[in-house]
């Protein structure tokens, strides 16, 4: 049984300033990860070794993160960790730059791997997901398509704009729609699909006949209305939809709480990422750190309260960092104060004595800026 897994970076919500020049899939998370690491680790931990990442834009940022290494592969010869980019689609404009167009543009991946089952999953839903029981159910039920959903009770405020499902008693999808926040109880589609190969090929072909703008979600929804049986799998664990800058900030901080953190980082489910071989972090005598994640390579001499500090960050003596996320290689100079802020990569806070946002208006300092 061969499985090909696509990590789908198309049609992902932007994260404001963070995604101006990079894919949301590579936005730094918890000081160490890129969002794509979570789904790629899910693939790897589920035993899927043929993985293609469908990149919609900013391929440089994705290539830089993945590099040439086989971070997620099980067998480095049989396994495949390929980046698929649709140059024609991206030139034709955003409406043409669909996940389906990318899969077809890079159809050699499908042909060469010749899978029995195709899995498609996004990187903007963060969750620890074992695909094996889903695939098992999919095969046992002889389903053409299985979609994964989460039954939530907060859809009025969360998962806005995401797909929601109406299910019948057999768990088959009767209707797909968008969550406009009308009610709290919803079956939210996680944009995770398992296809039989024939169904997948059929859908790719049909989509082209209907609309060049159709996405995989669109064609599944369309065919479901027109008689295609779509099964569902209910996932009950931790999941967050990283869909706005504010959510990015809030969901990061929520994970400082151990009770939340242990729902994402579960036993025997490692989250892989590209290693940088940074030395451990060092705390100086003047350091005062509370409620924070600190990544390796950081040199801490200042005060840190509720913060996420990435690799190779320097917090000098007298500096105060509160409720902030600081990206790789940034420096907070002596006696400078940062509150409710995201400091992007390689930035330096050296001039302004205090930079503060608010809990609902998070200050952003651009990559490489000196302020």
């Amino acid at each position, binding site marked *: 049984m061969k499985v090909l897994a696509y990590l789908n970076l198309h049609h992902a919500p932007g994260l404001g300033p963070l995604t101006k020049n990079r894919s949301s899939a590579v936005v730094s998370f918890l000081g160490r990860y890129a969002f794509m690491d979570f789904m790629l680790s899910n693939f790897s931990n589920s035993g899927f070794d043929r993985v293609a990442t469908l990149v919609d834009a900013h391929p440089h940022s994705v290539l830089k993160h993945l590099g040439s290494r086989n971070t997620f592969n099980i067998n480095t010869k049989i396994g495949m960790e390929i980046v698929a980019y649709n140059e024609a689609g991206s030139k034709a404009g955003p409406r043409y730059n669909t996940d389906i167009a990318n899969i077809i543009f890079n159809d050699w991946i499908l042909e060469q791997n010749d899978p029995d089952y195709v899995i498609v999953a996004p990187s903007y839903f963060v969750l620890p997901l074992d695909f094996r029981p889903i695939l098992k159910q999919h095969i046992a039920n002889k389903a053409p398509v299985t979609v994964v959903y989460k039954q939530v009770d907060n859809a009025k405020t969360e998962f806005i704009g995401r797909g929601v499902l109406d299910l019948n008693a057999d768990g088959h999808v009767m209707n797909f729609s968008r969550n406009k926040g009308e009610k709290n109880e919803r079956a939210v589609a996680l944009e995770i699909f398992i296809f039989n190969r024939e169904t997948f090929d059929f859908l790719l072909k049909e989509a082209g006949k209907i609309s060049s703008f159709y996405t995989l979600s669109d064609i599944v929804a369309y065919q479901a209305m027109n008689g295609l049986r779509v099964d569902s799998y209910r996932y009950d664990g931790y999941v967050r939809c990283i869909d706005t800058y504010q959510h990015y900030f809030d969901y990061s901080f929520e994970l400082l709480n151990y009770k939340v953190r242990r729902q994402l980082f579960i036993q025997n489910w490692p989250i892989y990422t590209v290693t940088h071989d940074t030395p*451990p972090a060092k*705390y100086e*005598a003047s350091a005062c750190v*509370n409620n*924070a*994640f600190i990544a*390796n390579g950081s040199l801490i001499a200042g005060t840190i309260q509720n913060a996420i500090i990435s690799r190779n960050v320097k917090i000098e003596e007298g500096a105060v960092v509160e409720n902030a996320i600081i990206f790789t290689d940034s420096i907070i100079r002596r006696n400078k104060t940062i509150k409710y802020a995201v400091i992007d990569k390689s930035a330096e806070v050296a001039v302004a004595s205090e930079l503060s946002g608010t809990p609902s208006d998070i200050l952003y300092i651009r990559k490489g800026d000196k302020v």
Partner: protein
Amino acid sequence: MGKELVAMILAGGKGTRLYELTRKDAKPAVHFGGKYRIIDYPLSNCAHSGIDTVGVVTQYESISLSRYIGNGEKWGLNGVRSSTVAIPPRQTESGSNWFLGTADAIYQNLEFLDSFSPENVLILSGDHIYKMDYSKMLDTHLKNGADLTIAVLEVTLEEAKRFGILSADKNDRITEFEEKPRNPKSTLASMGIYIFNYRVLKSSLMADAKDETSDHDFGKNIIPTLLAKKKKLFVHRFDGYWKDVGTVDSLWEANMDLIDSMDEDFYTLDKYHFRLFSEDTNSVPHYVGKKARVTNSVVNQGAIILGEVDHSIISNEVTIESGARITNSVIMPGVTVGSNARINKAIVMSDLQIDENTIINPDGDRVVLVHQGGVR
């Protein structure tokens, strides 16, 4: 054309003076600095010195060490022209033999070296903490047209009694060599790092192998013999940090030295010039709790600190529960220290569970080793 320089790391020793630390691990595999193992130092040095071929000679508890070394990928020593091989003792046509001494360990692997047709061979130990660019030592060796070059560092007269001590003339040519002299004539200590001209190495090892009275040891036999034969032996002076970590005390001291050395310059050097490579444990960044206090310390990813830590090394996957206080200690990977425990001036071995309210070494008169069976 053969390789200009091939490295051999002597990593077979048991390290008896590390006691329980080396009960299940060879000395080079002992944890260091919260993230590393001792052998990461010579292997990272090789990587940064342009060496692409490394044989790691193993013997004591060789499986875990071989597994750690793998194909050299952790140090980037798995490129197209690279080769990293862990070499345990083996059976051959002439029978099977344990390695009898440092020289014998190389002698028994001459065929391995022959296969690379090396011009020179670098012999290293797997139990020293130092960052060194061996290409500079090779320059010294070639400039002098030496048969053997020995890396040396200046020590005090008192320290000299514990080392192999060399005397050299004004051209740095070695005139005398004494192992652990009672009355040292010089303060140039051998670091146990040798570059041999391969022809000279091979012929002296073959001669030594026939000598039944020999201990088959570089320091005791090979070097004195070459010196007596008036071969061209030179020193290469090194003035950086170097430490032999063969005892619990010296291992603890080297860890404490690391804490004190990790300043801005250290991180700059590490980032741009001389990164120490190691295994990545796929751990979450470490977490420091709401009431925790961490000062003067080195903390690796995967740790959770809810208590107090001062002047200590905290490795990956270590948990320090609230109210616990760790001072002047090295906590190895996977340890959990229970609430309100106190640990001072100790090395705590991997994966131990230290119960709540345990008090270890409050006086701190000496360094203690905390192991499965108790406190040494």
